[in-house]
C-alpha cells in the first residue's frame, strides 16, 4: 500500500472504531460465513432453538444482566450442532458420507416440495464435483429453466424463445456495462435497466389488446419481470474487476435451488464470496444446510398445525376474511379483528421462514454458505432490526439498488436528511416499485392508471414503513436499557405490535380503497365509522 494511504488509514480506522464502540448497537444479522482465510467464524455461537450459528454481535446478553438466562436457553438445542462434531465433519467428506448426507437431504426435500428428485440430483453432481461448482450451478439452473418444467407437461416453444430473448437482453446489458464502464450507461447500468423495464410496461399498457405485439410483449414482460433484479445484480457485478463471465452470471438467475423475484442469495458476486473453499468448509456448510432444512420442516409442520388448530378448529379468521366482513358492513368485534390480524401476521412469518430456510438450505447444500433469509425476527428490539431479520434478501435488494446509490450521491451535507432520503428511496419508492412491477398481471388487466390507483394502500404502507425505519435508524445510537424487561421484552413486543398494525395496510390483494383499511383499523380500537 502506498505511503499516502498508510498513515491516514490508521487514523481513519481508529476514528471508525471509536464510532462503533460508542454506539453499543447490536448489529442485525446472524453470520454463518467463514473468514476469508478459511478459519471458522469466531462469532458463531448457538441459537436457543435450532442450534444454528449466531453472530455474537446479536447476543447483547454478552454484557447485559440477561446473560445467565440466555446462557441457559442457549444450552438447549432442538437440532444438535452437528457441524461442530469433528467425526461427523470428517465422515461427510468421505464418498459414503456424501451419499448419506445427500440421501437425508433428499428425504427432507421430498417431504417439503415437488421436484425434489431433480434438485437432489443437481446437488449430488455439485457435491461430487466441487471444483466445477459454479459451472454446474449454471448448467443446473438452465436445466431447471428449460427441462424440469417439461416433467409437468409440454412447454410451448414460444415460452422457451421468450426466455432466450430475456437472457439475450441480459447479456447485452451485461456486456455493454463491462465494455464501456465509463460511459453514461456504464456508470448507471441499473438505472438504464429499470427505465427500460418501466418503458416496456408503459408500452404494454398503450398497445391495443387485439395486436399480435401486445401478446408477445406481455409474454416477454412477465418473464423479464421475474429476472429483472437478477440482471440488476449482474450489472452491479459488471464493474467489479473480478466479475464472473456471463455464463456464470446465468447460474445466479433464478438459481435451481429456488428463489422468488428476489434473488436468493443476491448475485454472482455474493456467490463468489460465500463459496466453500475446501472439503472441510464444504462439509460444514452442507451440514448447516441439512440442519436448516430440518428447521424448515419443523416450521412447516408448525404452520400446518397452527392453521388447522387456530383457523379450522377455533375459527379465528384470516386478516383477509376479517377485512372482507368489515368492507361489507359486518365487522367482527374488536377481538375478532385483532385475532385475524395477529393470526395472519404469524402465519405470514412462519411461511416466509419455512420457504426461505428451505431455499437457503439448498444453497448451502450446493456449497454456498449463505446467510439465513429470516433470522429470529421476534427478538428484534427496533423496527429497523425487524426489517433486517424478517426478509433479509429483499432488504438487501432494496439496500443495494436504492439505498446505497441515494445515500452516496445526494444530500451529502446533511447527514439526517441523507439517511432519511436513502431510506425513503429504498423502503418507500424501491419497495413500491418492486411490488408494483411484480404484479404485472394486475397492470395488464386494469391498465396502468387503475393499477396505480389500486396500489394506493400499498403505497401508503410503504410510506409508513419508510417513516418508521427512518425514525428507528436515526434513534439507533441511543441509550440501551439494562434488564430483560426494558431491554428486550418491551421493545420486542412494541415492534411486533407495530408490524401487526402496519399489516392492516400491507394487503397485497389491492381490492379495497384506503378508507376501508382505515375503517378496519378503527374496528381494532372500538371505532366504527
Amino acid at each position: 500500500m502506498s505511503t499516502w494511504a498508510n498513515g491516514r488509514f490508521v487514523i481513519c480506522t481508529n476514528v471508525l472504531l471509536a464510532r462503533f464502540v460508542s454506539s453499543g448497537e447490536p448489529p442485525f444479522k446472524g453470520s454463518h460465513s467463514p473468514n476469508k482465510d478459511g478459519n471458522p467464524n469466531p462469532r458463531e455461537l448457538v441459537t436457543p432453538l435450532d442450534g444454528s450459528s449466531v453472530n455474537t454481535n446479536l447476543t447483547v446478553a454478552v454484557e447485559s444482566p440477561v446473560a445467565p438466562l440466555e446462557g441457559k436457553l442457549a444450552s438447549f438445542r432442538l437440532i444438535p450442532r452437528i457441524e461442530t462434531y469433528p467425526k461427523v465433519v470428517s465422515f461427510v467428506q468421505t464418498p459414503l458420507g456424501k451419499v448419506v448426507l445427500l440421501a437425508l437431504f433428499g428425504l427432507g426435500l421430498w417431504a417439503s416440495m415437488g421436484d425434489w428428485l431433480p434438485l437432489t440430483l443437481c446437488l449430488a453432481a455439485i457435491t461430487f464435483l466441487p471444483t466445477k461448482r459454479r459451472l454446474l450451478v449454471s448448467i443446473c439452473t438452465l436445466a431447471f429453466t428449460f427441462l424440469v418444467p417439461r416433467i409437468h407437461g409440454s412447454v410451448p416453444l414460444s415460452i422457451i424463445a421468450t426466455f432466450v430473448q430475456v437472457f439475450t437482453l441480459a447479456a447485452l446489458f451485461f456486456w455493454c456495462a463491462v465494455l464501456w464502464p465509463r460511459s453514461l450507461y456504464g456508470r448507471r447500468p441499473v438505472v438504464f435497466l429499470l427505465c427500460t423495464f418501466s418503458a416496456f410496461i408503459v408500452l404494454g399498457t398503450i398497445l391495443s389488446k387485439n395486436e399480435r405485439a401486445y401478446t408477445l410483449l406481455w409474454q416477454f414482460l412477465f418473464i423479464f419481470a421475474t429476472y429483472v433484479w437478477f440482471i440488476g445484480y449482474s450489472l452491479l457485478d459488471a464493474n467489479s474487476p473480478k466479475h464472473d463471465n456471463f455464463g456464470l452470471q446465468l447460474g445466479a438467475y433464478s438459481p435451481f435451488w429456488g428463489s422468488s423475484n428476489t434473488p436468493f442469495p443476491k448475485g454472482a458476486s455474493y456467490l463468489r464470496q460465500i463459496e466453500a473453499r475446501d472439503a472441510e468448509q464444504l462439509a460444514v456448510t452442507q451440514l448447516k444446510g441439512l440442519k436448516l432444512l430440518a428447521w424448515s420442516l419443523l416450521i412447516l409442520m408448525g404452520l400446518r398445525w397452527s392453521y388447522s388448530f387456530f383457523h379450522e378448529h377455533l375459527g379465528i379468521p384470516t386478516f383477509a376474511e376479517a377485512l372482507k366482513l368489515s368492507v361489507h358492513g359486518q365487522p367482527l368485534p374488536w377481538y375478532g379483528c385483532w385475532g385475524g390480524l395477529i393470526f395472519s401476521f404469524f402465519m405470514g412469518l412462519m411461511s416466509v421462514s419455512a420457504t426461505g430456510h428451505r431455499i437457503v438450505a439448498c444453497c448451502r447444500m450446493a456449497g454456498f454458505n449463505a446467510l439465513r433469509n429470516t433470522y429470529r425476527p421476534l427478538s428484534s428490539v427496533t423496527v429497523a432490526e425487524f426489517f433486517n431479520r424478517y426478509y433479509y434478501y429483499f432488504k438487501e435488494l432494496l439496500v443495494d439498488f436504492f439505498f446505497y446509490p441515494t445515500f452516496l450521491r445526494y444530500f451529502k451535507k446533511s447527514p439526517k436528511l441523507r439517511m432519511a432520503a436513502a431510506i425513503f428511496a429504498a423502503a418507500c419508492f424501491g419497495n413500491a416499485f418492486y411490488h408494483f412491477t411484480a404484479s404485472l398481471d394486475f397492470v395488464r388487466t386494469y391498465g396502468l392508471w387503475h393499477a396505480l390507483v389500486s396500489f394506493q394502500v400499498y403505497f401508503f404502507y410503504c410510506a409508513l414503513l419508510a417513516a418508521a425505519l427512518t425514525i428507528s435508524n436515526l434513534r439507533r445510537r441511543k441509550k440501551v436499557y439494562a434488564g430483560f424487561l426494558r431491554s428486550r421484552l418491551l421493545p420486542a413486543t412494541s415492534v411486533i405490535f407495530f408490524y401487526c398494525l402496519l399489516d392492516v395496510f400491507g394487503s397485497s390483494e389491492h381490492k379495497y380503497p384506503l378508507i376501508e383499511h382505515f375503517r378496519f383499523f378503527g374496528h381494532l380500537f372500538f371505532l366504527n365509522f
Partner: protein
Amino acid sequence: MAHGSQNVNSSIRRDLLAKKGDDQPLSDNSSLLVSGRLDSVDAVEIAVLLEETFNLDFGEIGFDPTMIDGIEDICRMLKGESQKG
C-alpha cells in the same frame, strides 16, 4: 503497511470485538460485512468516513460493500484509487 495493519488489527480486536465477547484472532482478510458482522448502515458509515478522510466519492467511483468488507479490502481499494489519482 505492516505497521498500519497491526495497529488496525489490535484496535479492532481491543475496541470492537472484545467488547462483543469475540476473542478469536482477527486477520486483515476477515470479513466484516459479507459475514453479517456489520450491517448496511454500518457500511455506509465506513463509506462516509473513507470519503471524508481520503477525499473519495463513492457516488463517482461506485460502491460495492465488498470493497470495504475487511481491512485488506479497504487497503486494496485505497491503493487502487491512489494509483488512479
